[in-house]
């Protein structure tokens, strides 16, 4: 598959080059997608590098869709790589190793919009690499180093968020830029030789404030104007790790436009992973907390807020979009309504629901199975579900909600007992609802693409009355044990099977159950079963050869069958009562016999 796609890409490039018949090379940009074009990030990077070396003049990059990807990724010269959404595009080191390796990179390479989790080293940069590390979140763990730069003076670390790392950044050159980042709750923020100065370090936020010996820069937070450096992340501790900034964060518009203004509103760059021109513009998704029918024509809906200052903003609020469809699940939804992001609940009103009962389905003759009947019926127009009605004397004895299916296995029945069965169709309207968050930039939004989050999980809400059709035609049948084909004997109960004629005879089943529950649970019983398995087939073959013996054998087996029936089909209380009564009877008889022998009783 990869070869095919590579060939297609090559063909496209050759075609583009052919267009330039006047000898003019057309500059082109090709983006390889993970996982759409290549299943792994490394495969995409390696193929991009191969293509780039074969097609000078064309720029290749890699775009990674949201997901969790394993670490150990080796960056390639001239190939930039970006995640689609910072929060949901994760590279995990799995607790050990180096998540991303950059060694000897040449050309312009940008690594952006990823969340790096649990690694000994997040990004290791060596070999005089040229690299821009921007708009990433690093939380590698308190024993790890997020970014380690050695022998590579042409590296910039801008607009990243470092949260709960052992060491956020180590550098060995004053020309390495560390700007517009947020350092929060790291053991050490910036580690460098004492011979280096604070040059290249500025406009960062340090929470808590760094020690006096740590380099900070003159425009970083805290400073004379901003004493509290808490960046006010939305939700850094939960599994979802939302490092967007809340309203009131000191890091908003507090950076410098080293790369350019904020991508979403053009203002001065925010600090952290969600600031600057490379910040992803897709808000964090919300989740529906509850959705239920408020009346016959309205649904009450609540969801978790998106507390980013671009959405839940009291001055310039963003929006929540409510999407819903009647009796149709998933996008695209039939209806969309918007609500200001100052609320996280609403009533969707004016909804319609089904007013006509569905037609009755037609029930086909059932198929028998062991202690069950296999039912199937025709689909009823307008039905959203079906009820199965059954009983011995009447179909009204039991009702089961079968769901929205046209076949059903009616279980828990007694073999040989006829049952009457009918089916009815039910109809109830169901609304399928999802919510998105929209930022306050006023720009055109599309769910999951620009300025609008992906859909929340979908909620389904039944609405209006449950309307039921009349009963289908009534059928009657009885379940029975199924014989496999060919109907071969089991290795047990040879003689009984031969005597009673077929494997699924109830007497044989009782003996088999007795074997499994009593004989196989004791050493003596297992020895007997082994002996029986050895010699039973011989007896069964003899019986098959002399069928006139079968009635006698059946009679001889009767006590064993009754005993097995008693032990397997009665409760312990009944068994104890019968045994006690039998014991008393034996005692009485023995006592009477003794009296008779001694002449005391006539």
């Amino acid at each position, binding site marked *: 598959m990869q070869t095919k796609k590579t060939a297609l890409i090559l063909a496209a490039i050759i075609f583009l080059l052919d267009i330039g018949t006047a000898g003019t090379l057309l500059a082109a940009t090709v983006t390889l997608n993970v996982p759409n074009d290549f299943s792994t990030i490394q495969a995409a990077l390696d193929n991009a590098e191969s293509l780039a070396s074969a097609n000078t003049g064309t720029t290749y990059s890699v775009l990674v869709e949201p997901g969790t990807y394993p670490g150990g990724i080796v960056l390639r010269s001239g190939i930039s790589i970006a995640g689609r959404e910072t929060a949901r595009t994760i590279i995990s080191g799995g607790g050990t190793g180096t998540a991303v390796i950059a060694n000897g990179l040449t050309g312009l390479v940008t690594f952006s919009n990823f969340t790096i989790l649990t690694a000994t080293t997040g990004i290791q940069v060596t070999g005089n690499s040229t690299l821009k590390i921007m708009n990433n979140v690093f939380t590698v763990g308190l024993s790890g180093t997020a970014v380690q730069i050695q022998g590579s003076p042409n590296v910039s670390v801008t607009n990243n968020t470092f949260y709960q790392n052992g060491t956020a950044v180590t550098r060995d050159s004053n020309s390495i830029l560390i700007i517009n980042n947020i350092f929060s709750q790291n053991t050490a923020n910036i580690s460098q030789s004492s011979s280096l100065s604070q040059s290249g370090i500025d406009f960062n936020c340090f929470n808590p404030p760094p020690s006096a010996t740590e380099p900070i820069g003159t425009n970083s937070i805290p400073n004379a104007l901003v004493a509290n450096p808490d960046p006010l992340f939305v939700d850094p501790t939960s599994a979802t790790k939302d490092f967007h900034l809340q309203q009131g964060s000191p890091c908003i518009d507090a950076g410098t436009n080293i790369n350019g203004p904020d991508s979403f509103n053009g203002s001065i760059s925010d600090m952290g992973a969600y600031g600057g021109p490379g910040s992803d513009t897709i808000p964090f998704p919300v989740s529906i907390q509850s959705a239920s029918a408020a009346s016959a024509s309205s649904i009450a809906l609540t969801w978790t807020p998106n507390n980013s200052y671009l959405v839940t903003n009291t001055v310039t609020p963003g929006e929540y979009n409510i999407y819903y469809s009647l009796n149709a699940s998933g996008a695209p939804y039939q209806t969309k309504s918007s609500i200001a992001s100052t609320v996280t609940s609403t009533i969707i009103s004016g909804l319609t629901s089904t007013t006509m009962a569905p037609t009755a389905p037609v029930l086909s003759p059932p198929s028998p199975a*062991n202690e069950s009947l296999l039912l199937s019926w025709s689909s009823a127009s307008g039905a959203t579900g079906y009820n199965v009605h059954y009983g011995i004397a009447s179909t009204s004895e039991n009702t089961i909600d079968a769901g929205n299916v046209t076949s059903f296995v009616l279980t828990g029945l007694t073999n040989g007992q006829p049952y009457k069965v009918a089916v009815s169709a039910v109809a109830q309207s169901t609304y399928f609802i999802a919510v998105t968050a929209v930022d306050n930039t006023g720009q055109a939004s599309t769910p999951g693409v620009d300025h609008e989050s992906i859909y929340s999980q979908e909620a389904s809400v039944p609405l209006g009355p449950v309307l039921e059709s009349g009963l289908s035609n009534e059928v009657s049948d009885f379940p029975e044990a199924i014989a*496999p*084909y*060919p109907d*071969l*004997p*089991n290795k047990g109960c040879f003689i009984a099977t031969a005597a009673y004629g*077929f494997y699924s005879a109830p007497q044989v089943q009782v003996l088999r159950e007795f074997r499994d529950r009593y004989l196989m649970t004791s050493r003596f019983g297992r020895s007997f079963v082994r002996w029986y398995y050895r010699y039973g087939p011989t007896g069964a073959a003899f019986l098959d050869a002399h069928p006139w013996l079968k009635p006698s054998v059946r009679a001889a087996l009767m006590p064993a069958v009754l005993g097995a029936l008693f032990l397997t089909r009665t409760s312990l209380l009944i068994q104890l009562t019968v045994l006690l009564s039998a014991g008393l009877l034996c005692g009485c008889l023995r006592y009477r016999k003794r009296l008779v022998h001694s002449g005391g009783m006539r």
Partner: protein
Amino acid sequence: MILSVFSTTAFAEEVTVRPHWSLELKGGAFIPDVDNWSAFYGRRYTSEYGGSVAYKITRKVEVGMEGMYLMDKGQGFAPIHQTITGSVKYESVPLNVFVLARWLSSEKQFLVPYIGGGWTRLFYREDVQNQGVVRGSTNGYHGRAGLQFLLDGIDPDASRSMYFDYGVFHTYIFVEAEYVHALANTITSGSVNLGGTSWLGGLLFEF
């Protein structure tokens, strides 16, 4: 003592210039002898695969063991209703002990016909959904015949690599027909042959 070990080794190399063992990996279609198979299992045949290991008594005669596996899913039978219904999984493992004769006159013979047969122990298992499992075994016999095509000449380099890396003298691709006869009593009436005819193909490695 060292000299005696070397001489033993040298002798061993001298007498092992021909392969002594063969390994077959094969698969194909199995057509059961049971009547009405397609009515219960939807088609007249099912897939089968397995392998065998044999010791070559001479270059032309070998004895060995073969194990096959076949499985099919279909329906069962409701005896009182006299209808086909339910869900049944049928599995069978014939184990064959065989003697095989090969018409081989040269190590480089491209086409080698063979014929063989022997004793069969056939194990069966029938799983009726929501009901239980029936299992057992029966004895029988089998015969098979086929053609082996020597692959060594197609790619001599690969052939040499197979020998030096894995000790494989020759590699054949083969096709064969096999018939298994293994009667088992049925519960309701008489007996049935659980065997049938197999059309198989596979690879044979001699080492």
